């Protein structure tokens, strides 16, 4: 879709501009993602009734939020039922043009920072504090680990 392309292009340029020069590096990009996550989860949950539990919120992230931003659902959600969740996207939109193997692997983190912020922001808007980290087993798949802080 043409207008989803604008988002991708903007993300691309942010990853280049925000992480390029200053050493603040990924923090700025994560900050932008955080604010977008807050805003999106606000809009996406206007009509939905409140969530049953933590897992229900994570399912919302993997479906509604992921489709809006990445045009597909998360491929695999696993949890240890103690507040740690693993989201796996086997064809992550923001990596799919880069490579489908090892090339550019070392550059991957700056293309995941925004999304870590996005997930963190969405959760915080729904009342959950979390830490989100990401890793790339091999392009273009990516894994996001979400650890919910017990309040």
């Amino acid at each position, binding site marked *: 879709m043409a207008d989803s392309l604008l988002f991708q292009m903007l993300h*691309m340029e942010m990853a280049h501009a925000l992480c390029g020069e200053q050493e603040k590096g990924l923090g700025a990009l994560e900050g932008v993602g955080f604010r977008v996550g807050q805003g999106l989860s606000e809009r996406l949950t206007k009509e939905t009734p409140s969530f049953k539990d933590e897992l229900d919120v994570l399912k919302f992230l993997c479906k509604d939020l992921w489709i809006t931003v990445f045009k597909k659902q998360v491929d695999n959600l696993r949890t240890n039922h103690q507040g740690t969740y693993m989201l796996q996207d086997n064809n992550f939109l923001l990596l799919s*043009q*880069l*490579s489908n193997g090892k090339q550019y692997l070392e550059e991957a983190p700056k293309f995941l920072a925004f999304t870590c912020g996005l997930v963190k922001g969405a959760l915080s808007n729904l009342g959950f504090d979390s830490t989100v980290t990401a890793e790339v087993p091999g392009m273009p798949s990516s894994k996001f680990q979400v650890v919910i802080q017990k309040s």
Partner: protein
Amino acid sequence: MTVHNLYLFDRNGVCLHYSEWHRKKQAGISKEEEFKLMYGMLFSMRSFVGKMSPVDMKDGFLAFQTSKYKLHYYETPSGLKVVMNTDLGVGNIRDVLHQIYSNIYVEFVVKNPLCSMSEPIQSELFRAKLDGFIRGLPFFSARAG
């Protein structure tokens, strides 16, 4: 029917990509010189056809052929030049060259933040997608060659 080779040039004459599939004769000069010679030819060809044309042109130079091969040419308004050499049996493949531009170059170079638009393309994904696309063309088969 055969596809011999393919060149991609940016608007300043940098050879962004070159690959070959069935090539029996090299140019007898280094690859760098060959790219410069090819680009120089295309650059002069553009002004040659522009002056020779009896009426105003739209697409301009499309192709030329010799006794043994046909060179197909496609240029975008942004100055990207796609050049494909095939055997003489291949007709108008302008839409194929446009597909290379829109489905492969735009998708895996323009939308790849780690790909500069004015240096030779390093992305392996781009090379794999291009190679796959060319091998899948109906006129690619080398059996005849």
